[in-house]
């Protein structure tokens, strides 16, 4: 194996600090997702099964495989 390759291999798995710095676009996107999740949460109670407690209690399966 060449020296270059060895050096490349050594890098693997190590933290690359430059890449780890959050970039503003990602942060902006994250904020946007949060806002969108809020919208989804507004509607979620209508989607959830009624009588959640009862429904979850009754969900009993036979073990499988």
């Amino acid at each position, binding site marked *: 194996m060449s020296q270059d390759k060895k050096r490349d291999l050594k890098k693997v798995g190590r933290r690359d600090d430059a890449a780890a710095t959050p970039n503003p676009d990602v942060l902006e996107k994250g904020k946007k997702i949060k806002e969108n*999740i809020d919208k989804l949460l507004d509607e979620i109670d209508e989607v*959830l099964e009624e009588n959640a407690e009862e429904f979850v209690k009754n*969900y*009993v399966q036979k073990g499988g495989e």
Partner: protein
Amino acid sequence: MTPRILGTETEFGVAVKDTAAQDPVSNAILLVNSVDTVPSRNTLWDYENENPLVDARGFEVEGEKERPTPDYNRLLNKLLGNGGRLYVDGAHPEYSTPECASVRDVVRYEKAGERILESCRVGADRSAGGRRFVVYKNNTDGKGNSYGYHENYLVSRSVPFMRLVAQLIPFFVTRQIYAGAGKVGAENRADPAQYQISQRADFFEVLVDLNTMVKRPIMNTRDEPHADKTKYRRLHVIVGDANMSEVATYLKLGVTALVISMIENGYPVKELKLADAVQAIKDVSRDLSLKQPIAMEDGRQWTAVQIQEYYLETAHRYCAERGADPEMRDILARWERVLHLLARDPSQLSREVDWVIKRDLLQSYIDRKGCDWTDSRIAMMDLQYHDLRPEKGLFSALEKGGYVDRLLDPEAVADAMVAPPSDTRAYFRGRCLQKFPEQIYAASWASILFDVGQAVVKRIPLNEPARGTKELVGGLLDESDTVESLVSRLSA
């Protein structure tokens, strides 16, 4: 690197609403028989070559082999035009993808299976009077009962099974950090948890065994290759969760296939032995920070991410020295990126990794309502994340809203419901079933039995999973107008 043949099996959970009587076996039978995308309802599953009692460690255990009567066989099995199998396994509907030669294709066929099950549900609702079904792609009822998601990787018989065991256990214990589907609470007498990474971790009680239903092992020893047994093994992986995320499914299967390849080709991960793998799989599942070290046998302490990075390092060397196809290079790059983010801030994977997607959704709901993790609405959301109904499933809602990343074109998934992959023996199986639906007496992974109008059916073995491809038999199938002419050409 030659492509690896692989496929998955998914057992689904079933809830029935509006009724007191719930017989899970009849429900599973009704669901499977409500399928509308099947070439023929008469084709039998050929159990001839099946024997799940053979152990890869070199012995056979006693037990009864499954050999249902023809009528019951038809009730339990639907052979799909896509080359896969829809069937009743115990008390659950189960779907096996056809054999695939690329990871992306397995994901596509697995997602197609979800849609097939959804179509079964719609059909069952229509015919079952007041009963209403709900089908879940998850692995537990939250009360100590688990059902499986199994991966199958074709491996050379020349690799000693115990070498695979030794090399893969630390990998399987830790890959849940990107492959876990997330679960509220704990079960099966495992330590308490508010929320954990894996659906299945609580159920693994031993290291290596043939069992799949009780005392589940991290490494399953079933030696049933469904192919030429002198050349192949089928590594039957039972330790994983069923994923909803396409990206997570792709990563889980792709990384596992890559790690198996490097072990097979003599790139072992050396000196990596966990002090207690059965305990570690549960500890990793409970460490949402991914910072807790795991004890190694030699006293070292490594985090789950570090163990995965150790495999990644060997995989990089393997691919650099032996070459890798574009898909493997893509998987390698994604794996590296995901480990990097997991070590730093797992919440950055809230569009890709199921346990993070689910946790963030549940946490947002908790923050909004001021409730806590023991609230029954949270348990409901944990279950409903896996609901296959497009209008009810929470993963489905996230997908529709654009909150999670996709890998596949939905059109390509729809196509996979009916068309077989072109590059494995599933092509031959699927095409035969479609072209001669009433003259395929039976079929299985490794056989097709043609009814050519004689007293004895003609059995064609399919012992080579990488043959029977469009390239090899496409022309032959196109040119054969009758099953007799196909069989005579095959025998020529």
